[in-house]
C-alpha cells in the first residue's frame, strides 16, 4: 500500500548544525498494517512521518501510495490519501470554530471547499451520532467552540474527525504526548477501535513502550535515521517490555 524507497533527509545541509534525519529508509507498508514506530529523540521517527505527510522535503528517495508516486505532492495535496493526528491537540483543531464547523472542514478533507453552506440540521445529526460513541457528553455541545474543550476531548474529537471523509491511511504523531494518563488511555483505545473498525492502515509514533506492545501488528525501531529493527506481528506479540528497554540502551 505505502512504499518508502531509499529516503534521505538532511537538515541544515553543509552547516555546522547539519542533522542527518533519515539515512536510507526502506519500508513496505501493507494494507491494514498498524505500524508502531519507536526510537529515541532524534532517531528520525518524526522525520519519517513528516516525509510521508509531506511537511518536509526529502532530498533523495520516493514514496508511493497504491502505486502512485506522491513524492512531489505538497502536504495539502496529500490529504487526499491520508489523515493526520497531531501531537498537540491544539494544532489538530481550530479553536475559534465550533465543533460542527471543525467537523464540516474534516468532512471535506479530500474534496474542494465550495461556496455553499452545508452545516445544516442533517449534518449536525451525522456529527452528533459520531460523537455520541465517545461518551463524553459532547454531542449536545456542537455549537460550542473547540477552544472551550480540554486537550483530551479535542484529541478524541480529532480521531473521529479523521473518519469524517474517506480515510484509508492515518498517521498519528505521538497523539497522547500532551495528555494525562486517563485521557491518554481513552484516546489510544479510541484510536485502536477506529483503526480496526475502518480497517485503516496506520502509522503511530509513540514514546509509551507499553502502548507500543499493546497496539499494532508491526513494530519499527528507529536509530540514527534508519530502521534498526522491523518486528512482524507474530514476533511482536512475544516481545517483553525489558527487551524494548534494552534496545534503547
Amino acid at each position, binding site marked *: 500500500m505505502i512504499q518508502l524507497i531509499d529516503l534521505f533527509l538532511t537538515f541544515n545541509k553543509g552547516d555546522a548544525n547539519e542533522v542527518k534525519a533519515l539515512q536510507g529508509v526502506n519500508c513496505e507498508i501493507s494494507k491494514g498494517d498498524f505500524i508502531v514506530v519507536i526510537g529515541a529523540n532524534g532517531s528520525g521517527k518524526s522525520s519519517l512521518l513528516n516525509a510521508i*505527510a509531506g*511537511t518536509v522535503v526529502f532530498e533523495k528517495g520516493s514514496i508511493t501510495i497504491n502505486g502512485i508516486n506522491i513524492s512531489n505532492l*505538497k*502536504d*495539502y*495535496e496529500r*490529504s*487526499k490519501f491520508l*489523515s*493526520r493526528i*497531531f501531537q498537540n491537540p*491544539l*494544532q*489538530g*483543531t*481550530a*479553536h*475559534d*470554530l465550533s465543533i460542527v*464547523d*471543525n467537523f*464540516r*472542514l*474534516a468532512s*471535506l*478533507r*479530500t*474534496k474542494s*471547499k*465550495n*461556496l*455553499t*453552506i*452545508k*452545516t445544516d440540521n442533517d449534518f449536525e445529526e451525522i456529527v452528533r451520532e459520531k460523537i455520541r460513541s465517545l461518551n463524553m457528553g459532547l454531542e449536545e455541545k456542537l455549537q460550542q467552540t473547540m477552544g472551550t474543550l480540554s486537550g483530551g476531548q479535542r484529541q478524541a474529537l480529532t480521531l473521529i474527525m479523521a473518519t469524517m471523509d474517506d480515510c484509508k491511511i492515518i498517521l498519528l504523531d505521538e497523539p497522547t504526548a500532551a495528555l494525562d494518563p486517563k485521557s491518554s488511555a481513552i484516546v489510544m483505545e479510541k484510536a485502536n477501535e477506529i483503526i480496526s473498525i475502518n480497517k485503516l492502515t496506520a502509522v503511530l509514533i509513540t514514546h509509551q513502550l507499553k502502548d507500543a506492545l499493546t497496539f499494532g501488528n508491526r513494530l519499527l525501531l528507529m536509530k540514527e535515521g534508519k530502521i534498526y529493527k522491523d518486528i512482524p506481528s507474530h514476533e511482536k506479540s512475544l516481545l517483553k517490555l525489558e527487551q524494548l528497554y534494552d534496545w534503547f540502551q
Partner: protein
Amino acid sequence: MDFIITALIQGLGFSALGLGIFISLRIFNIPDITTDGSYTLGGVITAICLTHDVNPLLTLVLALLGGMIAGTLTGLIHTLLKVNALLAGILVMTALYSINLALLGRSNLPLIGVNDYFTMLPISNQFLQQIVSIIIFITFLSIFLSWLLKTDFGIAMRATGNSEAMVRAMGVNTNQMKIIGLALANGCTALSGFLLTQYQGFADINMGIGIVISGLGSVMVGETLFKPLLKKGIIYHLIAIVLGCLTFRLILALALSIGLDPNYLKLVTAIIVLLIVALGNIKSFKKI
C-alpha cells in the same frame, strides 16, 4: 447635534474598513498596514472615475478591484517571498503612496457637481440620503461577509488563522487562502475610501495616514463593548464591529466638540487603541 450625525455617517462609512480589518486581524492574525494605502487607493479611484462621469456602481467595482489588487500584492509578498506580514504591508503601503499620487496627478481632487453613489437614491434631504444609502451599503456588505464566512470555503478561511497545520492537513492551500483573505480585506477597505471620498467631497493623498490604527481601534472597541454579541454567531460579530466603528467616531467627535485641537486627533486615536490593548493585557496579568 450636527457633529453627532456627521460622526454616525463617518462611522458607517468606516465600517467597511472595520470589517476588512476584522478579516485580516481576527481571521488571519495579521495587522495589515496595507490598509492605509488601499483606503486612499479606493478614494483616488473613486475621485478619478466620478470626475470622468463614470457610473457610480462601476466606480464602486473599480475601487473594490483596486483594493483587492493591493491586498493580493501584500499576500503574494508575504506568502511567496516569505516576508513578514507586517513588513509586506508596509512595503505595499509605501509603494501605493507614489502610485496614488501618480494616479491622482496632484495631491487633492475635489468632487464638485458630480453624480455619485448617494445621488442615485431619490431622497431630497441630503443627510437622509447619505445615511440611508450608506446603511444599505453596509447591510449588504455585512450580509455578504456573514454568508461567505459560513460557507465551506469560509470555514476553511476562518480555520487558517487558528491552525495552519490542521488546515493544510485538511487539503487547503493556506498560502492561497491568505492571499484571498488579504485581497478581500483590502477590497473592503477600498470601499470605505469609495464612500468617504464621496461624503467629504474630495480625495486627498494623505487621507489614509494612520487609518489602519482607527480601524484596529474600532474593531477592538466593538469587540470589547459588545462582547455578548460575539458568541451569538458571525453576523452578530460583524454587527459588533459596525457598532465599534460608530462608537469610535463618536468618541473622536466628542473629543473635538469639547475643544480638542484637531492636530491632536491622531494622538488621541493612538492613545485610545493603546488603552484598549493595555487594558486587555492588564486583566489577564491580574489572573496570573
